[in-house]
């Protein structure tokens, strides 16, 4: 990691998730334990028999912390855990915990940093969550392209087994936990939790119809909790330092804890930054050295490619947390903040994003399978100087036909967000392209051309 330890967080903020960044061998267990790692897990291992530690107690701590999922939707983690049916209602089925390490939202690269620099932090979080959820086998689903990450995670898992933090009857506690690292094949859609489940089962990554929700019937038809890497890492710190401490970080009761921000695009120092939940956008931008070359901002995508774009005005006093960004009619998503400066060609930017979604649609649902390439084809045509007068309104109409329940998963809603926001907020740029177009209107082939063709075919004896 080229990132300097100082400067990746606001002054006066003590990093939590990236506290061990830059330490030699930060990814190995000895260093982790030396820094106080696995103390919460040990607490539980020794306290489970005495009854000092119960799953409910862990869940309650997580609930009290106000932790919300870092995978994109910001769903309260403790609440999600309580959706798993109690043991007597599970029909003998095991509960699974799946760590979502598919991280493929464009602009997002925080989970990768976590697993490459401090994988034991994640493992400990998974151990604690597994205890809370009565999980005996947890999986880390890691995106196929993260070759090193998978390697490091596997090493870390072996180390944890060797040190007796995983396995059967762990340290005489009576608890059993195995963790398996499963590599995906590199499809964005496999980050969607039910597609991830299908993929883990060995099938194509097709999102499932919900309900049933994974908490009731997930992987192998068993109750399943899917949590993001960063979410699970937070669990470790909640257990280490308590929910009250957790809540001191953050803007308000509903947006708590430490947060990793991935900032990229036209900034001086793109990278992962840690701060409290609700860090003001301008503060993050300053940490990243401001807009490259001292230029002005034109647009910001605040939460990965799926998040609606914001204009320069809209980000001026934007707090980067779930409710703050939602209030600006976008979303914090995976906290991938992409900054575009005044020279950015918004038409090309939207076209580029639409290409990503056209490429990544799983293809199950008609509106998404057909709509994403349609939008992309139209945008490419506009960029190529073949735009039509009607194109912009048509694009907005098409996009509106794809979202809001028209599809199985919310991928389609994600795919249309950049188009809807881009075309609406930067319409004049699109119009400028179209104004220069060579063929402004749809045209039918000249009737003469058609009759000539038919005549030629009749002459050839093809038509009679």
């Amino acid at each position, binding site marked *: 990691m080229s990132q300097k330890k100082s400067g990746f967080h606001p002054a006066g903020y003590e990093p939590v998730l990236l506290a061990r960044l830059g330490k030699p061998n930060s990814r190995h267990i000895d260093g982790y334990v030396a820094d106080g790692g696995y103390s919460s897990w040990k607490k539980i291992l020794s306290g489970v028999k005495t009854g000092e530690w119960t799953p409910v107690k862990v869940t309650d701590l997580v609930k009290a912390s106000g932790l919300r999922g870092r995978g994109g939707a910001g769903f309260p983690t403790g609440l999600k855990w309580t959706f798993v049916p109690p043991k007597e209602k599970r029909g003998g089925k095991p509960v699974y915990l799946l760590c979502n390490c598919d991280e493929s939202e464009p602009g997002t690269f925080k989970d990768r940093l976590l697993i490459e620099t401090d994988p034991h932090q994640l493992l400990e979080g998974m151990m604690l969550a597994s205890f809370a959820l009565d999980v005996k086998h947890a999986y880390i689903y890691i995106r196929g392209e993260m070759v090193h990450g998978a390697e490091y995670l596997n090493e870390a898992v072996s180390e944890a087994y060797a040190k007796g933090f995983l396995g059967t009857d762990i340290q005489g506690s009576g608890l059993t936990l195995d963790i398996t690292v499963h590599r995906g094949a590199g499809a964005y859609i496999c980050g969607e939790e039910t597609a991830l489940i299908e993929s883990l089962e060995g099938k*194509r990554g097709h999102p499932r119809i919900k309900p049933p929700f994974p908490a009731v019937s997930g992987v192998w038809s068993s109750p399943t909790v899917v949590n993001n890497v960063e979410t699970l890492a937070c669990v470790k710190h909640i257990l280490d330092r308590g929910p009250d401490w957790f809540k001191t970080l953050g803007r308000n009761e509903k947006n708590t804890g430490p947060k990793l921000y991935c900032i990229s695009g036209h900034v001086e120092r793109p990278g992962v930054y840690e701060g409290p939940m609700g860090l003001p956008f301008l503060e993050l931008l300053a940490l990243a050295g401001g807009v490259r070359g001292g230029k002005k901002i034109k647009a910001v995508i605040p939460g990965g490619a799926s998040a609606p774009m914001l204009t320069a005005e809209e980000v001026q006093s934007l707090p980067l947390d779930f409710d703050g960004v939602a209030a600006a009619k976008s979303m914090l998503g995976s906290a991938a903040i992409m900054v575009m400066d005044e020279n950015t060609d918004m038409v090309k930017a939207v076209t580029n994003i639409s290409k990503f979604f056209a490429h990544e649609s799983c293809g199950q*649902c008609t509106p998404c399978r057909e709509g994403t*390439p349609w939008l992309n084809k139209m945008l490419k045509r506009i960029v190529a100087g073949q735009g039509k007068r009607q194109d912009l309104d048509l694009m907005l109409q098409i996009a509106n036909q794809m979202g*809001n329940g028209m599809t*199985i998963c919310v991928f389609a809603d994600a795919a249309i967000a950049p188009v809807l926001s881009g075309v609406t907020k930067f319409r004049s740029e699109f119009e400028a392209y179209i104004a220069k177009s060579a063929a402004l209107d749809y045209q039918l082939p000249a009737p003469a051309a058609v009759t000539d063709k038919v005549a030629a075919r009749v002459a050839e004896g093809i038509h009679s």
Partner: protein
Amino acid sequence: MAKVTVDGREVVVPDNGNVLEACRIAGVDVPHFCYHPRLSIVGQCRMCMVEIEGMPKIQASCTVPVRDGMVVSASSEKALAARNATMEFLLINHPLDCPICDQAGECKLQDNAFAAGLPVSRTSEPRRQYPGYDRTGIGPHVIADMTRCIQCTRCIRFCAEIAGTGELTFIERGGHTIVWTHEGKVLDNEWSACTADVCPVGALTTKDFRFRKRVWWLDKARSVCTGCEIGCNISIEHRDRQVFRFLPRPNPDVNDYWMCDYGRFRAEELNAQDFTRPVVKDGGSTKETNWGDALERIQKAVDEAIKAKGAASILVIGSANLSTEENYLLNSLFRTRLGVPNVEFVVDNGALRRIKNPKAEGNQEGWLKGLESAPNSRGAVAAGVTRALSDSALEKLSSGKFTPAVLYVADAAFAKKASDPAFVQAARKAGFVAVHARTKNALTEVADVVLPVASLSGKEGTFVNSQRRIQAFSIAIVPPPVVRTDMEVLLHLGKRWGVFDTRWTAGDVFELLKKEIPLYADAERESRAVAGYPAVISPASAYDSIFSPEEAEAKLIAAAAEGRNG
């Protein structure tokens, strides 16, 4: 049972039903592509969108299980707009060349576009092409054309869930998705052509029928497959006295929605008709003659044999290919009226045929199984014809221990034995040989009289299948002039001894069966159980409109809702 209100109409729906089914029970036609009553719910096509009270977003009705008190708006503006949207998306890459597509006329995309689509297209982008995946055979019977595929996955699910063979899959992703066989596989299972049935569009068609006839010209008749003892319900599809294809006719108690390729592709064999006039042997030479002459010769030979050697000198061979009515007439003429003790039949065991129907009675491990390669051994037995065992006259004839004075074979192709040279040689020794035949075989070569009879497509009657279910089949094509049905032949022959009325229909004969055969006392021609046999009752009314699987299913669901068939 759940009470659901659809567009203001309250209906009762089985608890495991979904909103799409509720709409259909309510008589509200919600268009759909990926939903199939026997395949898993995938909610992929997004065609069946409706509004449901209490759910803020539009819903794919097939994916929502019914709940008591649900209120559904299937025809609201929002629902119609959503469906129009899906139609538009489906059509932007579709070739829209229905005039040269063989599915036209029975295409769901065409129907739904007609009913709900936009009158104009808003796309000007190039349409997707599938070089290498268009008009390509993917198995012995099925041709795939991905330009027409709407990715509904019905075919994939058929192979995975019904056939259990899983040859088909999605390859590629998103807008590039192709439905094809797994690498190195061919679509070659026992029911491969059912994939073309479930395919709502022209993406999968059968080599055998493709471009043979525009489907709107085809007339349809309700019939039963004779390929094995399962007796899959079929529709004989014909035009201008020619059979073009069989389609499975949904019957949830028997073949469900399916039939096997073997049975299906016997369809065009029905068009073979070697004998169009009675043929008789005079001295060494054969000649065509009229019915009067042919029947006269048989009557004479029979009377003479009885007089000279007694009725036991006659052997009559019935057939498991003939209807119960025909076997009954054969038996009552020869055994009851003329006192012939030897009225027998044999049936072959063929390749094992299977139909997936876990809900049907008489299935083993979810399958109905058919071993006998003829449809009606049970009907022949019920009609009084004896199943030939080792000490039977038929076996004695085969082994040369019995030489009948008259051999009357009511089906020249009664079993494989009919073409066995040893049997034919033994048969030839009989004093007089008469056969009913449609096509030539070794037995017709040696017969003194060949009576030209119609194929299944020209007949009506009933069979009793392996579940002991009485199944009626009806006439598709009036036989060619002079050719008669087996029943007509037997009625006319019987009239010569004053036993039958030549005006009888199969229905009249069935009434006789009911009177004379105790087993049939409570039977009904279609779909009711034979008394004394396991009571398998299917709601006949459910498949009155049998040619639309959807309609049939909707009626079945409705019947279930009313508690008519449990």
